[in-house]
């Protein structure tokens, strides 16, 4: 069930990003960020009691004005201040429900963006270190079976007994989709497609599917050693002369779009 949901959500984002497949990563990230801001402000509008929020904002404005007008009268200032704190608390309660409702789609979008724009793809000159954690203890050095397709396996294989981990390096070999076979289990590595904005897989896990809804960069496997991760470097995006992580780009542009949406659609926040 969760697996199907995960496939559906990833498929939906793949569809959204179709026009950006041949463009640099930034444009897809920008589009999703702007869309998310607009989406969130729309959800907020329908999930919140706009009349109550509007009334509370007016009331709080009046209370601030009351404080400013009666600065010479401490008793009145205190009275207005207490009222203001109470109004503010009620206001926070009114926006809490839409925020809770927004949290889940927000986390889903966050996960999808992290999976697509958080890590760099494999570079042909730059080996990627793969670390595999064996839940049931390390196999004997001679018994470990690692196979690759679309990849080149670079020796040596490192065993860390104290962590029950094995590490090795891989390099892309050709443009095909890449797979690792560890202890008889096949897992995808890095790109899930050959377009810009596709998910970049950074690990695999045999655990529950629910958490992977929010971390779509991890591919689920049945059986096998346990879990593993690929050390792919972060991407920095050039915006306004700086070099930002995808998180900074997303927060900036989704906020801009949400504020603009609130202005255009007259949403009270």
């Amino acid at each position, binding site marked *: 069930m969760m697996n199907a949901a995960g496939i559906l959500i990833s498929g939906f984002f793949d569809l959204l990003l179709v026009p950006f497949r041949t463009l640099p990563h930034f444009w897809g990230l920008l589009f999703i960020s702007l869309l998310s801001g607009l989406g969130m402000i729309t959800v907020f509008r329908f999930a919140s009691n706009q009349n109550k929020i509007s009334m509370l904002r007016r009331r709080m404005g009046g209370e601030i004005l009351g404080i400013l007008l009666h600065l010479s009268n401490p008793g009145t200032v205190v009275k207005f201040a207490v009222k203001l704190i109470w109004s503010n608390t009620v206001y926070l309660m009114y926006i809490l429900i839409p925020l809770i409702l927004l949290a889940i789609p927000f986390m889903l979008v966050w996960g999808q963006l992290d999976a697509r724009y958080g890590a760099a793809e494999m570079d042909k000159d730059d080996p990627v270190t793969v670390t595999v954690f064996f839940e049931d203890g390390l196999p004997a050095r001679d018994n470990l079976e690692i196979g690759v397709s679309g990849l080149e396996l670079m020796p040596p*294989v490192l065993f860390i007994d104290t962590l029950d981990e094995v590490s090795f390096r891989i390099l892309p070999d050709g443009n095909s989709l890449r797979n690792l076979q560890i202890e008889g289990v096949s897992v995808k590595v890095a790109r899930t497609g050959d377009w810009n904005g596709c998910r970049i897989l950074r690990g695999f896990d045999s655990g529950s599917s629910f958490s992977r809804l929010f971390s779509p960069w991890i591919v689920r496997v049945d059986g096998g050693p346990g879990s593993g991760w690929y050390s792919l470097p972060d991407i*920095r995006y*050039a915006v306004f002369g700086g070099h930002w992580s995808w998180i900074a780009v997303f927060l900036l542009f989704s906020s801009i779009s949400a504020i603009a949406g609130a202005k255009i659609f007259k949403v009270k926040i």
Partner: protein
Amino acid sequence: MKRREFLKIAGLSPAALIAMNAGCSRTSSPARRVIVLGIDGMDPFLLNSFIHEGVMPNAAILMASGGLNRLGTSNPPQSPVAWSNFITGYGPDVHGIFDFIHRDPSTRIPYLSTSRVIGPDRIISISDWRLPLSGAKVELLRKGEPFWNSLTDEGIPVTMVKLPVDFPPDKGKAKILSGLGTPDMRGSQGSFTFFTDDARSITDKTSGGIVVAVRDYGDNCYACRIKGPENSMRAGNPSMEVEAKVWVDRDADALRIDIQGESILLAAGEWSRWVRMRFDAIPNISSVNAIGRFYVKEITPKLKLYLSPLNIDPLNPALPISEPQDYSSDLARNLGPFYTQGFPEDTKALSRGIFSDEEYLHQAWLVLRERLDLFHHELNRFREGMLFFYFSSLDLNTHMFYRVLDPGSPLYASTDPRFKGAVRELYSQIDRVIGEALAARDGNTEVIVLSDHGFAPFNRSFNLNTWLAHEGYANITSSHARNQDMFAAIDWASTAAYGLGLNCLYINRSDREENGAVPPEQVYDLLLRLKQDLESVTDPATGRRVISNAYITSDFYPGTLPLFAPDMIIGYARGYRSSWQTTLGSYPEDVLVDNLDPWSGTHCIDPGLVPGILLSTVPLSLPDPNLMDMGKSISSLFGVPVLPPGGRNIFTEVNSG
């Protein structure tokens, strides 16, 4: 204006602009291009010999068109001084760089001559936090106007890649990436970190890096704390640190470095790619980025893990290394991270025994390969104006491998014969670069190859301060103080002169230095006596003169000298140089000792003995070109109306003398 009139003008204007542009293109010549290759340390004698051996066919082509000329260098012939001569067209009396090291005239405290950091004006202190209210600044100490301003003022594009003595880069219209003089993130000229559990490696106290003792507590893991830049936001400026966990597998002879969420697997003998590190001044609020490369020297039986000096990240530089500021990030985006420090070849790691000859040469090759990538990138997009490109490899590698060229070197016999061809191979690499520059020529492109100085052997070290003490010019307080610095060893009230830096000697003047001993009216006579005495010093081991010329600075550079200028510049004879201890003011036991450091070549001697080279597609009309002439001469190739004031135009002027 009526709507119809506006539309008419709006419609006509672009057409008029196109017509004007077409008219211009008909009358103007194709874009002028000049490629200048600055090859630090290319020596005329070695170059000539390699050309005759057939190692440098492209240099031979260039020699055929403009001849191989000896290019007059600076006095003293040190790279920061020489390249400043090139940039400004004037000597150190104008640009103010006399040596790698200057000293405060009053306190005698030495400092790096090319740049300095100026702290923030105002700071708020809260507990042990220090919050600056204004930014710290880095100041370029080189004075004088760069020659390329005469080109950029006329709208001619100028790109200077890895330009020496230009950190922070000059503000202006030229595109500049700083080279020699750019520090690492610890503020030094290159300070490596070496993690080891081998106690024998931890005893040496030579400068150039930090040796960090680490220990495996039985879990095959070493916690390696990487010392970064100083944290000016904390009282006492402690170093910021990043922890790397190093997991070793001795059976596989490999290790994994886990650092800030990244894992890097390396086998013994391998180099990592550039690794980005974030040093937090205030966690999650203020941080600086650095890049470094790991090298696994050994895992079994002892861990020996080298980390390169922490370089300024060109993608997100913590200090200004390019002009415009996004030039370095543009390069990093296109080519990946690269060495940004001024001295990228880690000569200190070789001198200190951290690197073997082979390991050093491999690291030097990594540097050269990056530099070649930068060169290709810039050459491919060079359309118009001047492109200057600087190569440091020849200089630093000739310093380290002159011992294989000179049978007189004390290390000649003990150097592995496999490395006898190291210098030749580098010249050959540079020849390929010259070939690529020549291949990029069209009918309107000139190629100029120049070096700042040549090379000579450095077989014997002269302890200038010890000599001064032996001759009664300096008074050492006790024999215990000998190997300490001059501040601990010297009775200043009875000391007449002291040496500091590679070629500089200072009189301990009573009107300048604290507790100075020599009255101003006696200074010149003292200098004359010192000159005579220094020029008569002979090496008891060889019977040869140690110093060719001792130049009295005020005679050599008549005119007003800055207060920090040395009183005398020592021009050593071929085979000799000041010892490393002298450069920092120490007083070792012996006056002359064999130089057993792999740093076996030098140019910090008499300038007449180490001229640079000039190869050019433009024939020369003056017989004795000098580095100071190059700015004016290069500018003249563009036909600009106002040439820079310094130097002569060697390409067109007729020598009336």
